[in-house]
């Protein structure tokens, strides 16, 4: 689908569903729908959303009550109005209803060890560590062949390969700068072609923009090569933000830290 279609016709889906489009626009959208698989997929989800909102109204959009209110409602410690509001939410929200069942003693919370956010078991930590080590070793072979040992001072240039990451991830990319040399990054940028040209912004640890570059139109072998000049990147923490064309929200982040050797 082309950019124009995404920019205009595609945006009309919610109103096509509610039947509030003008007849000519509705006809145009119907025609578009027959050729747009992503619109048809999204329509199924929006239909479900519309049906649920139609059935339960705006109560479905209200925030979860605080844990304190859930406990208070179960134990009969809230004022009538407040308790009724929490009970309405419990009727709609299965996660809060589950919490209420713990308070009422009908069930116990047992699944933290299977939740990914819980404290990992030792065995799982080791299996993750082994997997990451294998990926790092295998992933570095092509770079090793092209550039020599990655991350080891060659006396020529240091090249660092960064997989795309989310800001705040636990990934730690710390690079020691060669005196007088820039930091060279090879970034894994797996964005769709319609996202180009890209805009890059380098932000330092104090959220200041230290370098911007727009009009990035192509990648080299699927990777974006970014050179962080000596003057732009003194020792410190940085995030390189990658924006798709016309977007105000970054699509990708690459966190790294530069240290003096």
């Amino acid at each position, binding site marked *: 689908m082309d950019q124009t279609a995404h920019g205009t016709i595609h945006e009309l889906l919610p109103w096509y569903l509610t039947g509030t489009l003008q007849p000519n626009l509705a006809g145009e959208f119907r025609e578009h729908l027959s050729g747009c698989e992503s619109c048809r997929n999204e329509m199924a989800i929006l239909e479900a959303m519309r049906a649920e909102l139609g059935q339960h109204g705006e109560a479905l959009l209200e925030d979860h009550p605080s*844990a304190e209110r859930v406990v208070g409602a179960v134990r009969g410690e809230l004022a009538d109005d407040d308790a009724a509001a929490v009970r309405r939410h419990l009727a709609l929200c299965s996660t809060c209803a589950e919490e209420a069942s713990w*308070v009422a003693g009908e069930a*116990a919370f047992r699944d933290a060890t299977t939740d*990914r956010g819980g*404290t990992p078991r030792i065995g799982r930590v080791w299996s993750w560590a082994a997997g990451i080590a294998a990926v790092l070793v295998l992933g570095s072979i092509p770079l090793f062949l092209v550039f020599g040992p990655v991350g080891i001072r060659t006396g020529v240039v240091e090249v660092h390969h960064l997989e795309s990451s989310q800001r*705040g991830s636990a990934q730690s990319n710390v690079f020691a700068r060669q005196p007088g040399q820039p930091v060279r990054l090879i970034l894994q940028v797996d964005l769709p072609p319609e996202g180009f040209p890209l805009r890059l912004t380098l932000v330092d640890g104090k959220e200041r923009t230290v370098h911007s570059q727009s009009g990035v139109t192509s990648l080299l072998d699927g990777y974006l090569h970014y050179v962080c000049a000596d003057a732009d990147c003194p020792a410190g923490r940085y995030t390189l933000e990658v924006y798709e064309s016309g977007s105000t929200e970054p699509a990708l982040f690459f966190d790294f830290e530069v240290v003096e050797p």
Partner: protein
Amino acid sequence: LNQLPQDAPGRAGTGRGPSTGDDDAARIDGYRRGDPDVFSEVDRWIRIELRHRYPGLLNEHEDLCQTVHQKLLKNIRADRYAGRSTLRTYVTGITQHTAIDRVREIRRQRDGLAALTRVTVADRATRPGVEPLDPKLLHQVLLALPAACRELWRLVFVENLGYQEIGRRLSVPGGTVKSRMWHCKQKAMFAVARLRRVAAQGKRK
């Protein structure tokens, strides 16, 4: 409850007979002064509650216990305990909502919904799919969206307004409404994809 063992949660006494108002006044006084016997008794109430109701948080019981003590001390110092229930009931209430807050935090981290505005590569790579949408998952998706998006969905699907009318309501051009809705729709789709991925990973485990 009557069939539960002596150290079961929610029991008003401590094995020395039922708790009374006088006992609680003495306990509060002792707790405020840092009396080790009172501290141990309250600590035991908290641990019993956590052990019975939140075994899944076993590795975090120590931290949770400390948090409950901090909250309790703060409340007692601020005279927030009004004596409407026994002290033990009050302590177990604080324990309950502290543990629930922790479970919520764990689940938010697991689902990645706290950072929904940051769309990951995995989200982009995952199509929302055409399978029927579970209402439970849909509710999670809606509550994970920013408030501005939820308001837009309300205007569209509850009030049934066209984009021009919404624009008049929000004092913005119709084109801006369409564009904002586009971003909200994208966020919803990414949230669906992310939650489905998390659910699939959970099943594999």
